């Protein structure tokens, strides 16, 4: 898996991680996300447009990135009720353009209940407040 990263400026500083290839292992994504986090990134866009397949290890990687950003937020934490009712979506992690199979994996695992999924990087960047 190749991961390219760059910074965008929206309402807040945003790091884009653009993934290419199947997301079938935890380490490449979490390593890059942790490096970005150590470099100050607190808002991340994962561009999944070139990810044909997300395995369970890939789902775990996305969850790890989500937790990394969530735990750094000292504000109100989500509850099961706020997620189930659709009142909560992560303010720090946004997904972009998952493939049909990727979207199926994310939806089955319930990730679309707490992560916003956008059609473009620009839309994801604009969604940060």
């Amino acid at each position, binding site marked *: *898996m*190749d991961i*390219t990263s760059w910074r965008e400026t929206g309402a807040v500083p945003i790091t884009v991680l653009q993934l290419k290839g199947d997301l*079938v292992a935890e380490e*490449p994504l979490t390593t890059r996300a942790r490096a970005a986090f150590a470099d100050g990134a607190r808002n991340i866009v994962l561009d999944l447009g070139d990810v*044909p*397949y997300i*395995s*369970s*290890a890939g*789902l*775990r990687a996305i*969850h*790890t990135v989500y937790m990394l950003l969530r735990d750094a937020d000292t504000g109100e934490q*989500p*509850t*099961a*009720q706020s*997620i*189930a009712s659709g009142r909560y979506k992560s303010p720090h992690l946004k997904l972009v353009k998952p493939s049909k*199979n990727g979207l*199926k*994996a994310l939806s*089955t*695992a*319930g*990730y679309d*209940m*707490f992560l916003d999924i956008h059609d473009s990087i620009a839309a994801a960047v604009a969604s940060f407040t």
Partner: protein
Amino acid sequence: MAWFATEERLHLPAGATVIREGEPGDTMFVLVQGELSVTVKGKPIDYLLPGSVLGEMAMLDSRSRSATAVAVSAVELVRFDRARFLELVRQRPEFAAHIMNIMSVRTRRLMEEEVKRQRMEEELVIGRRIQLSLLPRGCPQVTGYQFAAGYRAAHEVGGDLYDFIVPTNDPSTVHLVIADVTGKGVPAALYMAVSRTLLHSYACDGYSPGEALRRVNDFIRQDAASPLLLSAFYAVLDADIGRLTYANAGHNAPIHLRAATGEMELLQSRGLLLGAFATFLPDEQTCSLEPGDFVVFFTDGITEARNGDGGFFDDEGLEAVVRSQSWSSAEELVSAIVSAVDTFAAGAAQADDFTVVVLQRLPPA
């Protein structure tokens, strides 16, 4: 490194291949700017940053390239041919020492990785043995119903679990769970063993599917260090009245095939993977099984089976099999699904465990 201040510079765009595995190599490179991804047989092995050297092995052993390096961003490289390389080695001992140091570091790393790989391989085997020991030896015998199961382990990645629990104090109730741990090796197998034990305990205590999953989630989350997640679909069959009560924690929705209409419905019930959040809010649902109905429970190893072209068997592939004919038994349907997956994959390597469990409410004799 001033040795290459006057050497030839090469500028390549992102995506360009600098060296290709298997091709003859008569040049080496020093990366001045940009980043390179290095792979062997398609697997990433290194990520090179400015200052890195590549292609030096071919300078010494005259063999073909051992890896492929692709520019992740626009790169600037210094290129040496063999004659210049040998000249530098002769003229500048510090250059030779630098190259030897790079090769020494890489050799040590390869040795460490080989030891790590062997340990992981051993752990995978142990984990697989534990996992297989957790699977049921057979299917429950319940008047008016038939159960059948198919399971196949993948070599590397896996973590499927299915189980039947028939409480001794309530033999007309069958608890059925199908699950997938997001991990491999001993940690995943132990995680699965604990989850299975908990579910047995909660089933025998009479907890509903949603409550049982909620309690498993609570237990998992008590161990904050655990990085593993578990998808699970838990159903309880009341065999006396043909009612299925179920809850889902991030697992593939089973297919309900109605005998009367031939229509298929998904047993929808939303829920997050177990372990993902501190609390799990179950969405418990029920459905009625009429005589002749089938329910197909499965893991993503079925729908995500791939053929040689990288295509997926997909939900459509599974649903096409389920509705392709009238099935006489649960066993027949399980065999047809496994056979269809094998035909589709056509010998392509199995990337994940796959499990399919079929429940049939038998038609009147």
